[in-house]
């Protein structure tokens, strides 16, 4: 994996501005694309503006096409799918299984195990929301008249309630993803951390990745774990950062970066908070090299 990480020569901002359009269409050489990513991550305002301009140019291109009205059934399918998702998030969690004959898809029992991983947390969050709501309505709300302290408590409880609702929504998305019949699992084994392991549950239709890490040492202060998507023959691409709890468990949902080529390897390194654009050695976890 290490030999995939190379350094590239610098370009000027004027040269980058002209490359920005090619970058967005995905035709740049890997070295040029990597240079742009690094430079943009550095916060250059000139190139950030050039990127926005290039994105707007790209978005204008389809306007040359005559619009095509979708069939009414297409919108109906969309709204039904949204309704199903809402029901799932609301807690109507049912059993699922994969009947795919493909050997690299998850076995039937795996999604059920994963359900067990998430459902208790989702249920706990739901209960917490109800309890919080009861506290706010019955206990704290009357105290509003008692002064600023009670108002502050109410604000804190409402914030807590919003956080729990967000957590529940997020876990609902995980559960919804695990219903997909297109799941594949990629295992990352410990490199620098021998006893750690991570699994990527990959929905090959939507290209969502659900990452479940276990046994990782909590990163040093100011550091996070960063996941890398490494396409075949190309540079590593930042696929998101995560941290772990005191038990070494971490969860993250991300999407396979678009237009970066077929997947070869996934790896995890320790990086500064907010993530880096190039991996810092040593590699903590890595998958075996494979094709899609």
């Amino acid at each position, binding site marked *: 994996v290490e030999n995939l990480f190379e350094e590239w020569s610098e370009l000027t901002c004027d040269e980058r501005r002209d490359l920005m359009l090619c970058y967005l*269409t995905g*035709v740049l050489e890997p070295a040029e694309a990597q240079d742009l990513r690094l430079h943009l991550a550095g916060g250059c305002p000139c190139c950030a503006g050039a990127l926005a301009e290039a*994105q707007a140019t790209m978005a204008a291109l389809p*306007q040359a096409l*005559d*619009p095509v*009205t*979708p069939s009414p059934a297409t919108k109906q399918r969309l709204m039904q799918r949204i309704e199903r998702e809402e029901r799932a998030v609301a807690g109507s969690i049912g059993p699922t299984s994969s009947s795919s004959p493909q050997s690299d898809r998850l076995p039937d029992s795996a999604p059920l195990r994963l359900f067990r991983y998430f459902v208790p947390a989702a249920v706990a969050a739901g209960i917490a929301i109800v309890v919080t709501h009861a506290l706010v309505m019955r206990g704290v709300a009357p105290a509003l008249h008692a002064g600023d302290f009670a108002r502050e408590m109410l604000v804190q409880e409402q914030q807590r309630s919003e956080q729990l609702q967000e957590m529940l929504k997020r876990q609902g998305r995980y559960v919804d993803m695990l219903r997909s019949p297109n799941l594949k699992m990629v295992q990352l084994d410990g490199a620098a951390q021998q006893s750690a392991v991570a699994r990527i549950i990959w929905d090959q239709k939507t290209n969502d990745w659900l990452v479940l890490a276990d046994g990782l040492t909590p990163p040093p202060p100011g550091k996070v774990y960063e996941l890398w998507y490494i396409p075949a023959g190309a540079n590593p691409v930042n696929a998101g950062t995560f941290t772990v709890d005191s038990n070494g468990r971490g969860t993250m949902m991300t999407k396979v970066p*678009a237009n970066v080529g077929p997947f070869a390897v996934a790896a995890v390194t320790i990086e500064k908070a907010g993530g880096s654009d190039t991996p810092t050695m040593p590699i903590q976890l890595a998958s075996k090299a494979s094709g899609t």
Partner: protein
Amino acid sequence: MSQGSPQTDDFALMSAIAVGDRGAISALYDRHAPLLLALCRRILRDQADAEDVLTDVFFEVWSRADRFDPSRGSPVTYLVTLARSRSIDRRRARASRGASNTVSADATDAAAIASPSPNPSQSTEIDEQRGIVRAALACLEPQQREAIECSFYEGLSHSEIAERLGKPLGTVKTYIRQGLIRLRDRLRTPSGESV
């Protein structure tokens, strides 16, 4: 919804979607589905596949509303980027399965069977924008336009385009780079913004 500019309305719709307003995703769909379906069809050359991707795109907008960052671009830019990316992904997946294109490869195919936008109140503005973009494309050299279309609509790499067009790699790179720069400059309004 207040009567602002279409862009302002789009931002308001995205904010409403982020808080779970189903009416907002329905309105966003009504406004942009015809443009996005034209794009998906142009890339996939298949009506059923294009409508599938269209559904996926709007579902993603709904379920991942937090991913839209208004500081990084307009909602329509976001939608077009998603639709193009998902369509090219599907096109590649289909190619890897060995499926053949089910619709004519004629580049004008989508336009030939296109139907008008369902919202007449937007048609004047859409027509005007279409005219501007078509005029900008018409200013390109034919080879530049062809190379850009291979890149934008088919997601081909420089080397794949060179093979397709039977031109040296360096020549294709020059076509695309110069063509895109010319397009960008043509589409820029007097205030410096793109169309």
